[in-house]
């Protein structure tokens, strides 16, 4: 079985390595899962000390787990999922933030938009509903990432990509969290594709020793693998959850 290589050769600024991707047979999906599992094993060793109890963990994490368990016949590794808290603590989520693309003067701060989305998505774990407007804002951020292969610190209210503002790699972990939560609430193929690319990028950074928040990857990877395994099953492909 050949190794999964999309998390190993992110060619920043040279265009995505995803165009014209060749078909490599069924074993490609196994190599993808094996690669992601290996990263989770590494993270399990390095992040368990950072987990701590907060209201956020008590209220939101069980709902996330419940959603995954109800929607599938697999039980994700609770120990790993518990590490989600490390991510949310690391991200310094600000639930008071209420960013709005239309309410600010010309542009909105991406960090704030993501904070806002994550907060609302966590709330929505209870009701299962989140507004289409919030999804629309996340799609705009995803579009920037797809087109420019980067994120910038702010996004124009005119929905134009402004490359003149500073890039903001620090937003990637939050973006991954937002995508993971969004997909748990509502399947979306385009966002899942972006999520896979973003996680490839974050794993590449981790392996290069440049990860911004290594522990933040746990939730992102588990949520992504869950989405992929679920989608594969809908299509009659039985992937084995590692």
């Amino acid at each position, binding site marked *: 079985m050949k190794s999964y290589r999309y998390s190993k050769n992110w060619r920043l600024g040279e265009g995505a390595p995803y165009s014209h991707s*060749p078909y490599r047979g069924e074993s490609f999906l196994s190599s993808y899962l094996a690669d992601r599992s290996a990263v989770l094993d590494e993270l399990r060793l390095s992040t368990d000390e950072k987990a701590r109890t907060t209201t956020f963990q008590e209220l939101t994490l069980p709902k996330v787990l419940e959603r995954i368990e109800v929607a599938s016949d697999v039980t994700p590794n609770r120990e790993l999922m518990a590490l989600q808290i490390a991510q949310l603590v690391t991200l310094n989520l600000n639930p008071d933030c209420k960013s709005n693309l239309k309410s600010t003067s010309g542009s909105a701060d991406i960090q704030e938009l993501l904070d806002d989305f994550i907060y609302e998505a966590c709330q929505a774990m209870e009701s299962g509903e989140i507004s289409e407007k919030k999804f629309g804002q996340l799609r705009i951020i995803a*579009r920037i990432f797809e087109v420019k292969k980067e994120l910038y610190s702010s996004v124009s209210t005119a929905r134009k990509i402004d490359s003149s503002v500073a890039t903001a790699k620090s937003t990637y972990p939050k973006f991954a969290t937002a995508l993971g939560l969004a997909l748990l609430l509502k399947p979306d*193929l385009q966002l899942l594709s972006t999520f896979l690319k973003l996680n490839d990028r974050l794993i590449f950074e981790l392996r290069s020793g440049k990860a911004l928040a290594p522990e933040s990857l746990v939730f992102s990877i588990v949520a992504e693998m869950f989405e992929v395994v679920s989608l594969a099953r809908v299509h009659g*492909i039985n992937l084995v959850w590692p």
Partner: protein
Amino acid sequence: MFGLEFGLIGAPTGRTLAYLKRLYSDCLIPSWIALVDSDFSKPSDEIEHLSGRNPEDWPEESEEEVLRKQNDKSSVLDWLAKRGVGFIALKAKSFNDPLVVEFVSQIDSKYIVYSGFPGEIVGPNFLGTAKKFLHVHGGYLPDFKGNTTFYYSLLEENKMGASSIFLDSGLDTGPIVNRLKFPPPKTREDIDYAEDDRIRAITLTNALQRISDEGDSLKTEENSGGKTYYVIHPVLKHIAILSQQTHGGKGVHRN
């Protein structure tokens, strides 16, 4: 009866070859054919045909192989030569090159079939030549705009689609001449090479026939809204190819 006068301008790619084969097979013969390429003296190397071999044995760096195979210049030129079909060689790297723009602006055809380089976006000078450029997008518009939409639509609804549009300055936003849906192919591994081109070629000839039949009374369809997709991640592409779904229906919802 087909009475439409039209030309074809294309890059020497597999898609252009598929269009030509279908057009000649259906007796929809273009008045002229122009090929755009930077060097007509050096046909591409013999492309190793990968299908039929175990995918695990394919070369490690084969995105380039995929691209080369799609742009197999020699096969287009060979096909034309074998049939004694002449073409106009426009030596340029891009359809936005002034040489190409000048050629198009001088040519006396209202309708021109466009088969460009993969990923190239034509600019205002090319589009400003006041011709009707007929382009076939590999997705059912306006629902599936953007890139690799064949795979997204297979995952979403287990169908493939294609739409003929008149090019405008937007991405897949031109008015729709016709759009068709197709069942998934029996062999999905060859979508990039064979099925993509086959479906687009069928949609193209269908559109030309419609333009011929309806002439100036042709009514195009609105192409606003829909969703824009970006290059699909290889994991999702593999699920689309390996899918066991045999009937249509939503392919993404849980519960």
